């Protein structure tokens, strides 16, 4: 009984120290990763902000009039078609039907 109890205690201490050691290693790795992610996140946020500004509808319309000669055309919903594949056959259906069937 004495030996078993001591053995369990010893095993527990060993396991705890092993867990602590491995956790510390993981913790260090997490810290390094987090630090690199943090700077990447800031950079991503800045790029995203730049992208959102440059691709904002207002800017796109501005570029369109600045660089393209043709005007934008409005899509007529009745002309939108929907492609669907059934039994290896591609079907072309009116998209607007889908709205009506809903």
């Amino acid at each position, binding site marked *: *009984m004495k030996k078993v*109890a001591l053995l*369990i205690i010893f095993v527990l201490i060993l396991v705890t120290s092993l867990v*602590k050691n491995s956790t510390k290693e993981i913790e260090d790795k997490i810290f390094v990763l987090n630090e690199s992610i*943090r700077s990447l996140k800031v950079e991503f946020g800045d790029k995203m902000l730049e992208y959102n500004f440059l691709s904002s*509808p*207002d800017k796109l319309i501005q570029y369109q009039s600045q660089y393209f000669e043709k005007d934008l055309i409005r899509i007529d919903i*009745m002309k939108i078609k929907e492609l669907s594949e059934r039994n290896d056959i591609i079907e072309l259906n009116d998209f607007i039907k889908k*709205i009506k069937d809903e």
Partner: protein
Amino acid sequence: MNEKYSKIVLEEYENRFLYKKSKTNLNIEFNRIAFIFFVFSMISIIFSIQLLHLGSLKIENKVRVLIGKNNYRSDIVDRNGNYLAKSVSSIDVGINPVEVIDKKRLLVNLQLIFPNKNYSELKKKLNKKKFFYLEKKISIENYEKIMLLGDKSIKSEEKLTRIYPQKNLFSHIIGQIDDDNKGISGIEKSFNKELKTSAEPLSLTVDTDIQFLIRKELVKFQSIFRSKGSAAILMNVDNGEIISMVSYPDFDLNKRETLEDLDLLNRASKGVYELGSVFKIFTVAAGLEEGLIEVDTEFLNLEKKLKCGKSTIGEYNKKIPSNLTVEQILIRSGNIGSVRIGQKLGIDKLKSFLNKIGVLTIIDFDIEEVGEPIPFRWGKCKLATVSFGHGITATPLQLAKGYAIIANGGFDIRPSLIKKNLNLTQKKKRIIKEGISKKINTILRKIVTTKEGTAGLANIEGYEIGGKTGTAPKAIAGGYSNANVNTFVAVFPISKPKYVMVVLLDEPKTSGDYIYKYKNKKGSYKGTPYNTAGWTSVEVAGKIMEKIGPILATKYIEN
């Protein structure tokens, strides 16, 4: 005798002692091991748990270090994750002249870093003893250069800069912050605490592309109809999510100006107006709800004019027949017919219905800029005027909510700008009887498709638009002005309503040059014949639908 006695005592004592000692020894030994075992086990378990716990917590703590600071404010994004507001740290550099050791040397060095600065002015500032800012929002390159000078009089200060990449587009929704990072209007104010403490961006229900297209049309028609202002709301009828809310004129949030112009009021949620005939739908819906009328109930011998106190109630169109069904009253927008329905209902029933759909009381919304309907005393004349939408005020947002409830099958909704506020899983609460929506929606469609209807210009093919117009003279102190408030409420697709759209024009005027293209028949018409909603707001709504329709139909079809 004496010797014998003492011997017996010794034996007894010895026996008792031996027995007791052996028993006690065993117990102490076992308890000690159990106790040590227990203590060690507990320590090991606690230690292991703590190790695991710390491992998972440390990352959050690092984020929290930033969040607690005053210069932290989380970003705001639209429903597609596009930035509407973003916080960027910037550095301001200033000089404390008292601490300058060599002024001449410092000026030469500064001239090398900032060649475009006015140095005679800078010299004057250096000669005074007051701290001044040399450069605000300095670039990283120049910041590094200036700090390398090593002059202790140069002070740097990190500041929070709020950037709004969409400029004017969401000005009324997002609102402004002050220099102390405190929200002073819009979402920035009402969600100030959340924005300062949340690591995640605040996600709104609005769509940038749709907001842009709607605003573009409002800006275009502002110059055509020369209105004082305009507003539009696009809302999902089932869950109250606001896809777009525009109020024009607006302002560029990046300029951070003090707004004093009353025209910059948020007309969509704060503007309180008499909205006119759009209210007739509520009167009819209340009549249907109470079982007092049906769609085909006939009202015979309707007068052309009604006298109520000092004022006279008349029809806007003298061609309106004297005998009308309930459906025809709505299609032709008959005032006298609506008054008759209102009178049939009585004050209590109409009041209770309007209260139920949230038209009479201040609306519960995500921003504080909400208008309060002007209170009034109910009476016979008030009942008559309220029946056709006069003498009663509401905001366009309240109107959108009321129409959404009527169109969605009679379920209560709460308009929302915040994605997480949407109760998508909660069971809907029915507040209007089943079947009323279908009857009203059919009439709304006829208002757009029939020749007698007042909203033919909104009949854009493919979207099944239904709706009701409202033209009301603008109330001023002591009466009414000659200017109008023209409103159109559209519900679409009418076979299974998904969206409600309100377009309001504040004091529009007729245009002599604008060319209307008919939707129900071939041909076009030059110039605005009447300053009514049917010729102004409906045209704007139709043009908006042409632009946003394909996006709504394709982008949100699976939602």
